[in-house]
């Protein structure tokens, strides 16, 4: 049952990825991207990470996609011009295929190793995923967390200065 569900969601996520990269109209690309984000949120739930799924939907499907759609509508972009260069597409397809083959060979041949932690499914179900994330974030990763807040502040100021009428 879980296997079937996984394959269905994987099919949907890859199909929406194709819509993102192939559709002529940027609005269709944006809608395909929203679909991809929701499918990835389903994957996160299947991987016992419900907090990450919620953040995925709130931040990506909520905030970032609204921003992208606003800009698409603000700039009033039509469909892309038809001038396309075939050799560019062929070389790009070869490069991305190389990336894909490389990654799949590594995944097939390789063995996942690394330090095993102690966070099993039962621990997550007992203490709650959000609590565990919060505990790790505010003890072990406190400094990166603060740096991320500074990064967001700088991004806000930079975006306002860049988008202002008179610079």
């Amino acid at each position, binding site marked *: 049952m879980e296997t079937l569900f996984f394959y269905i969601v994987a099919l949907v996520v890859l199909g929406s990825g194709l819509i993102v990269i192939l559709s002529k109209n940027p609005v269709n690309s944006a809608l395909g991207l929203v679909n991809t984000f929701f499918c990835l949120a389903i994957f996160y739930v299947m991987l016992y990470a419900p907090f*990450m799924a919620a953040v995925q939907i709130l931040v990506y499907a909520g905030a970032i996609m609204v921003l992208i759609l606003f800009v698409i509508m603000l*700039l009033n972009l039509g469909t892309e011009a038809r001038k396309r260069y075939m050799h560019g597409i062929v070389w790009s*397809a070869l490069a*991305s295929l190389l990336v894909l083959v490389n990654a799949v060979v590594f995944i097939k041949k390789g063995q996942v190793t690394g330090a*095993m932690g102690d966070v099993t499914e039962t621990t997550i179900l007992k203490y709650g995923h959000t609590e565990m994330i919060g505990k790790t974030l505010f003890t072990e990763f406190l400094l990166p967390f603060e740096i991320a807040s500074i990064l967001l502040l700088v991004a806000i100021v930079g975006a306002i200065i860049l988008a202002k009428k008179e610079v």
Partner: protein
Amino acid sequence: MISVYHYMTVAAILFAMGTYGVLTRKNAIVIFMCIELMLNSVNLTFIALSRHLNNMDGQIFVFFVMAVAAAEAAVGLALMISFYRNRESIDVEEIDLLKW
């Protein structure tokens, strides 16, 4: 049974798709969306491996990737708006001020 390798294969295919989109598209916003696609595939790999290794660190890293992606979205889209004001287009072939 679904193993970590299934998730990683899906993420690899998504990443390759994003690479193809970044290399072939001419609209700057679509390229931006393809970059978001690649970031998301990396996030999926992080969470799958974090679950496989019973470790929480990968999910914290996903959190930071999301924060950086949000900052990147704000600054990148502001750049596109200011470029559109100057050139009336966001075709990447017309971004050639530094070309000689």
